[in-house]
């Protein structure tokens, strides 16, 4: 019976230790980001998500940096997308977060507003941002504080397969004037001419909120208002889904189950990559990957409806950001490393456009000569389009928007919800997530 008693003691101690540690996790950070760099050996942890190609390039840049600053060791930790966020949340909860964190627009507010990210404004001494477009920098700010530096820029675009259009004798639409109806018409011609083997358009609305943002902006609305509440009018949302549902109904897009299957399978199995859809929406920076996968001639078109829109739908979206943990023990050195990633030509020559067309204007010009044809087209696209100010970053609590959007789109396409009912349900659910996180 002796062990029973000692067990109770240890039980309570352990509980206290565990929870105590959880509570301690909220404690303040290490030293000041504005201080001088340490001469002592410093080890930084740097984490990112991506595929094997990115891991290689990033590792090379780390080595270049270490050569330049021999007392700083950078440990790279790479993960795939889903695992990345699970791992990040866990390490942050345990006060064990990596120093430099690759961040996504979806999660910035969730981490920054809860105090997990360092205000990089305090690290100005080591981190230069002069070569960045102020509009781009602004996408990394919350309440006036710079929590993240944009890495690359991208913009939503319509990718068209020129070879397929030629094959089926469909004229290339004029993307300076075209409307959403024109897209439908061109798509219908492709579907008809191919006998259904190739569909005109690949439906969207499953993997990101880009298409929805654009649709709202063209209608003069926005997905969120400045305060971070859902502000898209139900009628605009319903129109969006009506349009997508019509594409499928009229055979311009594949049947819903095929669409959904492709959407969840990733880029390589999409209609564009397998040459089974002529038009599809993508981020402009994905052109290189798409071209490699499809082997055909793909071209970036401006989005339909821009000429008639109440305000420009297009905007620059940072592909990802650099941010620093607020609990980093070496904020100054971490800022220095971010500075190297963001401003050094040496690093840019290795990274090129792997993380998108660089948001740093000077760097963008510097590497322009080394880009592949498709990357040049992607960079050129950014200059060619007329953009409005970027929408507000995804509010804290709304990081699950993509899943909510995907589910509602699926329900509309499968006829389980009318566009109107889906609009009401979507707005209610998203808003309640935001309210719950307040």
């Amino acid at each position, binding site marked *: 019976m002796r062990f029973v008693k000692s067990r109770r003691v240890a039980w309570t101690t*352990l509980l206290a230790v565990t929870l105590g540690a959880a509570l301690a996790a909220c404690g303040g950070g290490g030293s000041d980001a504005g201080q001088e760099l340490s001469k002592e050996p410093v080890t930084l942890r740097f984490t990112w998500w991506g595929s094997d190609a990115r891991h290689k390039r990033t590792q090379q840049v780390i080595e270049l940096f270490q050569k330049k600053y021999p007392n700083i060791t950078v440990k790279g930790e790479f993960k795939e997308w889903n695992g990345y966020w699970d791992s990040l949340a866990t390490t942050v909860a345990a006060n064990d977060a990596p120093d430099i964190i690759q961040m996504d627009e979806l999660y910035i507010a969730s981490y920054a507003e809860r105090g997990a990210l360092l205000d990089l404004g305090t690290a100005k001494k080591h981190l230069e941002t002069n070569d960045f477009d102020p509009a781009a920098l602004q996408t990394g700010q919350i309440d006036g504080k710079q929590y993240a530096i944009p890495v690359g820029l991208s913009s939503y675009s319509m990718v068209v397969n020129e070879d397929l259009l030629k094959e089926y004798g469909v004229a290339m639409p004029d993307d300076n004037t075209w409307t959403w109806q024109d897209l439908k018409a061109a798509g219908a011609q492709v579907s008809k001419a191919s006998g259904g083997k190739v569909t005109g358009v690949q439906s969207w609305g499953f993997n990101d909120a880009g298409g929805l943002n654009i649709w709202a902006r063209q209608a003069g609305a926005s997905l969120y208002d400045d305060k971070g509440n859902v502000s898209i009018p139900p009628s605009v949302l319903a129109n969006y889904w009506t349009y997508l549902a019509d594409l499928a109904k009229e055979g311009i897009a594949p049947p819903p189950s095929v669409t959904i299957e492709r959407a969840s399978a990733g880029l390589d199995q999409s209609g564009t990559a397998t040459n089974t859809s002529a038009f599809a929406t993508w981020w402009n920076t994905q052109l290189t990957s798409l071209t490699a996968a499809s082997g055909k001639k793909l071209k970036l078109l401006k989005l339909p409806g821009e000429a008639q829109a109440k305000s420009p739908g297009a905007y620059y979206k940072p592909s990802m950001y650099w941010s620093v943990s607020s609990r980093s023990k070496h904020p100054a050195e971490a800022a220095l490393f971010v500075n190297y990633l963001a401003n050094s030509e040496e690093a840019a020559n290795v990274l090129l456009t792997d993380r998108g067309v660089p948001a740093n204007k000077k760097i963008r010009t510097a590497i322009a000569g080394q880009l592949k044809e498709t990357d040049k087209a992607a960079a050129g696209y950014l200059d060619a389009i007329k953009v409005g100010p970027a929408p507000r970053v995804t509010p804290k609590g709304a990081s699950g928007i993509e899943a909510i959007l995907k589910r509602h789109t699926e329900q509309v396409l499968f006829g389980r919800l009318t566009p109107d009912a889906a609009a009401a349900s979507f707005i209610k659910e998203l808003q309640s997530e935001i309210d719950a996180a307040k």
Partner: protein
Amino acid sequence: MSALGEMRRLGSSAQKGKKDNKAAFFFLLPWFAGLLFITVGPVAASLVLGFTEYNLIQPPEFNGVDNFTRMLDDTRLHHALGVTFKYVAVSVPLQLACALGLALLLDKGLRGLAFYRSAFYLPSLLGSSVAIAVLWRQIFGAEGLINQVLAFAGIQGRGWISDPDTALSTLIVLNVWTFGAPMIIFLAGLRQIPEMYYEAAATDGAGRWTQFWRITLPLLSPIIFFNLVLQIIHAFQSFTQAFVVSGGTGGPSDSTLFYTLYLYQRGFNNFDMGYASALAWLLLVIIAAFTAINFWAAKHWVFYDD
């Protein structure tokens, strides 16, 4: 039959009433240590967190039974419960039937036994690998194997995985497909039945069916029971396959939203770990109830030799 009955009586003549606390403590020492140092703390913490609002980044805030009252109005939770119950009810019996059937078939001296056993076990080896999602689309996708076969017969197929009407069924098939683990356990159990029982029964003139009903089934019953209990627990916690196949969403349109998948989404995607912890404890209560019923029912059909 008489020989068997005698053996049973022999088996039940174990001494009763003497405690072996000292020996038990020694044998259970590693387990006690694990319970104390590894299991208790986190489990207790998750229970406490169930009564808090905890976003993983800021310290948890006590909010009483809010998480539990919230469950009453959570329609996605109710939906997830429905999906999970359906999954458990269909996939567990199917998988166990396949596993037991093949184990019996493979237990007999058949040529190429090792090959079949390995072939049937191979799919279970793939388990949760990322490749599974891709492979599954190769079979059940819109252009997959099934539809190609159907096309031969002139039948228009569909995207089985991405159609909300059939998505759950494909996951059930996926689970049945990996019947290797219970099959191996059944095989191991069959190997443990002493040959002499069969010999004795044969001497008594019992036929094959009688042998199966009177020897194999009762003597295998502890193992059948084990597989049943564990597969039910396992099915309630089913996560990886749905996660991998649906890309973590439980789609299309929540048709494969398993309980643990929903719990995971709340905890990690929505930074709602307090609620997720409460959900975990609800699941524990549900599973425990099923397990208790199982143990209660076991008295009537499981045969132990002690």
